[in-house]
C-alpha cells in the first residue's frame, strides 16, 4: 500500500470531465480531497491524498498524465510566524523532534528549525495565539 499527496492541475476542458470518478472506479484508489478549486470552463487544481496498491497508484498517475493533467507531488510545511508568537514556549514541550525549542532556559526564547520538523502537527493545537500554520506547497 502507498499513500501520497499530490496536486493535480486541470485545464478548462479537463475540469468538465469525471476524471476523479475513473481514478476510484478503475484504479481502486482511496481519495481524500484536501483542497480544491474547480470551476466549469476554467483552469483548476485539486490537492488530494491517494491511498492504494502501489501498482494501482502508478497506473492511476499514468492515466492522469496521459489525459494531460499536470501532476505534482505535494509537500507540507509548518510555518512559524514569529511576529504572532508570544514566546510562551508551550510548543517546545510538545514538539517531538525539538524543531520548536527553547534552546536557552535563561532567556526562554522559542526558535524554530524547519529541517528538524516532521510535520506531526502537535504544535498547531497547543499554540494559544495560532502562531504555527500548516502550508501545502507544490514541491
Amino acid at each position: 500500500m502507498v499513500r501520497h499527496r499530490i496536486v493535480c492541475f486541470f485545464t478548462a476542458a479537463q475540469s468538465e470531465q469525471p476524471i476523479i470518478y475513473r481514478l476510484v472506479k478503475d484504479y481502486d484508489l482511496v481519495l481524500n480531497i484536501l483542497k480544491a478549486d474547480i470551476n466549469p470552463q476554467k483552469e483548476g487544481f485539486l490537492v488530494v491524498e491517494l491511498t492504494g496498491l502501489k501498482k494501482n497508484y502508478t497506473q492511476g498517475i499514468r492515466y492522469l498524465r496521459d489525459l494531460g493533467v499536470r501532476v505534482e507531488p505535494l509537500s507540507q510545511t509548518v510555518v512559524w510566524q514569529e511576529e504572532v508568537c508570544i514566546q510562551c514556549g508551550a510548543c517546545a514541550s510538545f514538539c517531538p523532534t525539538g524543531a520548536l525549542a527553547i534552546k536557552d532556559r535563561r532567556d526562554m526564547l522559542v526558535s524554530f528549525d524547519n529541517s528538524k520538523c516532521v510535520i506531526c502537527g502537535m504544535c498547531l493545537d497547543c499554540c494559544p495565539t495560532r502562531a504555527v500554520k500548516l502550508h501545502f506547497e507544490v514541491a
Partner: protein
Amino acid sequence: MAVKRTYEEINEKIRAGRAVVVTAEEVIDIVAEKGVARAAREVDVVTTGTFGPMCSSGAMLNLGHTCPRMKMSRVWLNGVEAYAGLAAVDAYLGATQLPENDPENKVYPGKFLYGGGHVIQDLVARRPVRLEATAYGTDCYPRKKLDTVITLDDINEAYLFNPRNAYQNYNCAVNLGDRTIYTYMGILRPRLGNAGYSTSGQLSPLLNDPYYRTTGIGTRIFLGGGVGYVAWYGTQHHPNVARGPNGVPTGGAGTLAVIGDLHQMSPEWLVGASFVGYGASLYVGIGIPIPILDEEMLRFTAVKDEDILCPVVDYSEGYPYCKPRDLGFVNYRDLRRGKVIIEGKEVPTTPMSSYPRARKIAAILKEWIQRGSFELTCPVQPLPSADADIVVHTLVEREARPDGE
C-alpha cells in the same frame, strides 16, 4: 543605618532623572554581589512584569449614540456578544465570550479560534470591527436595529477593566488520567505526560510584593502597553493562605482588579488566545513598579524562582471534581528548566505564560521610570493582606422553589 525612603523622595529622584531602577531579575544579581543592605541603599525602584492568559478580563465600551437614538439591549462585536444590560450605549465585552455560532466543544476538542479577547486585540490594533445591536424601542430611544462598522477611535470611552489579573502564584497542572485532557492550563497528556504552569515567577508582580505592602488600590501600573491602575483587589483574592519563610504564598493567593484606557494600549500587549478544548481568552501584559521603601521591600523583590513553590494539582479528577490529592510542590526554577519530578517521575513542563515577554515588560517599565514619564503612586488604600481572615466560599446549592420563596 537602615535605609528608609518615601514615595515622594523616590518621585523627586525620578523627576531629576537620578532614580536607580532595576528589574526584578537584575535585583537578584545585585543582592548576590552586594548583599541586601547595600542593594537597598542603592536601588530606588524594582520593576516587575507578567504576560499570561488572564480570562477574567474585559473592556467597557461607550459606543456613542445613533440617530435616531437606540437603547441597545443586545450588542455584538464581530459576532461576539457584549453585555449590554447597562445604559443605552454602554456594553462590557468579556475576554472569554464566544461568537454566537461557535461550535464550542461540539466537535471535541473545539478550536475556539475567535472570542472576546480577539475582539479586544482587534480594537486596540485599530482594525475595523462590525457592530450589531438590537433593541425593543422606546419613546426616547426609538431605533431597533443597527449594523455598522466601527474602530476604537470612533467610539467614546473604552477602558479595560479586568476583575481578576496577576494571580499571585498558581497551580502546576498535571493529568493523572488515561486520556489527553484540554484545560485552561493547556493540553495535559495522560499519566503525568506533562506539567502546565503559568506565571513569570521571580518577575511576577505579586510574588515580589508578597504582603501587598506597596501594591494597593490606586497603584499606577503598566497595563496592556499603556498606563493603568489597580482598581481594587481582584475576585478570589485570598491572601490568608500558607506562605513560605520568605512570605511568598505556596499556591494561588492575591489577585488584582485593574483598569486603564484602551486607547493607549497596544495589540502587542493584549493578545487574543485560543485554548483548544477550553475556550478563548486574552493575554494581558502587566508590570508593577515596587518602591524600595526599606530593606524589607528589597528583600522581597530579590526573591528567586527556586524559592517560589507551587502545588501540583491533578486536572483529570482532582480539580474538576474537587477531589484534592497531595502531589507535593515544585519550584519555578525547575519548571523553567523544563523538567520536574512528580511522584518519582520526570515530567516535561509546559509554560502558558511568556517569560521573555514578562522580562520585556519589566524593562519597558524601567525605561519609562528612568525617562521620568512614569511616577510611583502611594496606594489610596492597601489590599487585604495575610491577616485579613477572608473565607473562600464554594457555592451552596439549595432547592429552588418555583414560586421563588
